[in-house]
């Protein structure tokens, strides 16, 4: 057993775990963060995406001890005071989900993209999403949702009361 301390969605978590536990397992099995989905568990599908120090990573390919002292964001942490993140709103408004299994991963990858690049081009969005598979084939709607969210965010930034 080793102890791992990290910040999960803004809250400090201290947990005893084995070193051969993946971050995905730690989040789901120990902490019941079920928005982080189990897909291929080999780094291909992106369903398990979380943000590690603001960067998207595949939680299925990270050992629990590797996140000691670091920051993790999941979709549970996207919503602040029950207020949806513009990306969440836009995914709803653009019908950017079908079965919804890829959605949490898609949202987090998109968030990391918009954080660094508030006005991405379509090509940049496609590039950013290439590690998040959607078998329902909602890519176009997801791209539209990201464009819409980007606009919302820009409007918000310019907004001066």
């Amino acid at each position: 057993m080793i102890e791992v301390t990290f910040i999960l969605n803004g809250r400090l978590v201290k947990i005893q775990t084995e070193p051969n536990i993946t971050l995905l397992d730690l989040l789901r099995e120990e902490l019941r963060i079920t928005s982080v989905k189990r897909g291929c568990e080999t780094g291909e599908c992106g369903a398990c995406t979380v943000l590690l120090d603001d960067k998207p990573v595949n939680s299925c390919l990270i050992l629990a001890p590797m996140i000691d002292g670091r920051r993790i964001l999941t979709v549970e942490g996207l919503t602040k005071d029950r207020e949806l993140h513009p990306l969440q709103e836009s995914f709803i408004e653009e019908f950017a989900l079908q079965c919804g299994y890829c959605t949490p991963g898609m949202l987090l990858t998109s968030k990391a993209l918009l954080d660094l690049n508030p006005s991405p081009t379509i090509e940049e969005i496609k590039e950013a999403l290439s590690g998040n598979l959607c078998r329902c084939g909602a890519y176009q709607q997801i791209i539209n949702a990201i464009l819409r969210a980007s606009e919302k965010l820009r409007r918000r930034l310019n907004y001066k009361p």
Partner: protein
Amino acid sequence: MNRGEFMRADYINLVNTHIIPIEFTYHAPETIEEALKLLREYQGQAMVIAGGTDLIVDMKLRRKEPKHIISLGRIRELDYIIEEDSGIRIGAATKLRSIEKSRIVYERFEALHLAVKSIASIQVRNMGTLVGNICNASPAADSAPPLLIYEAIVTAQNLEGARKILMKDFFTGPGKTCLRNDEIVTEIFIPYPPRDSTSSFLKISRVGMDLAKVNIALLLKFNSNVVEDFRIALGAVAPTPLRILRAEEYLKHKPVNEENLRKVEEIVSEEIKPITDVRSTEWYRREVSKALVRDALNIAVNKVMRK
């Protein structure tokens, strides 16, 4: 049907990607020195983990079953891209994503920039390292052809000291390198390519995020109208990434015209030793290698003209 084959193939019950179905002790040293000591202490049973994007999959698949894992993640002194007079040094813990975003790599080592950008997804590049990519020694490793044409030098260290390995000597077979099991690669040095040379990288794969069916990197420099320097390397077409010296020799001091191009293509398709596997066929790999040679050359020539 070969029954003997089946007898050995009990992977179906050993593989479990839900978990890491083996147990190991995890070490997170903070200095190279400490890491080397651990590696020596558990020599033969220990493996180094950088990003883990290869190693963790390999453990889930039971291809690798180390008893000790030595993480490079906490060794601050290994995460860098340093510009020097004669080239750049990239540390073993430097993430692929940092290399992709590096200005100097983009400006001076375009083939490497493109190769790194073509690896997997942003997620994987945020975790994986360049050094891990070559240490894993996949014949399809995208960073290998560029590193071969730039004639990179790998520094490997053990408790006794450091040694320099030329890129061309680094790979010894699929999944095999010339590293000893008490050595850690600490950095890769990449000399600047000759002034006024250009380089390019191309990759053929099945979908937008994929391993290569074939990849290629080349470097080209003209002196007036003839080729002064030409280097070419391909991946996924032989047990190791391959530099095609015979093609390089052929094109030197010659103009790039249809006839010479044909000849270079021909030499390349003779020198490579592709196989048929789940991703593609031997025939196809040989055939598209020609197209890749031509395309990569065209791109490089175009760039020269634009300069």
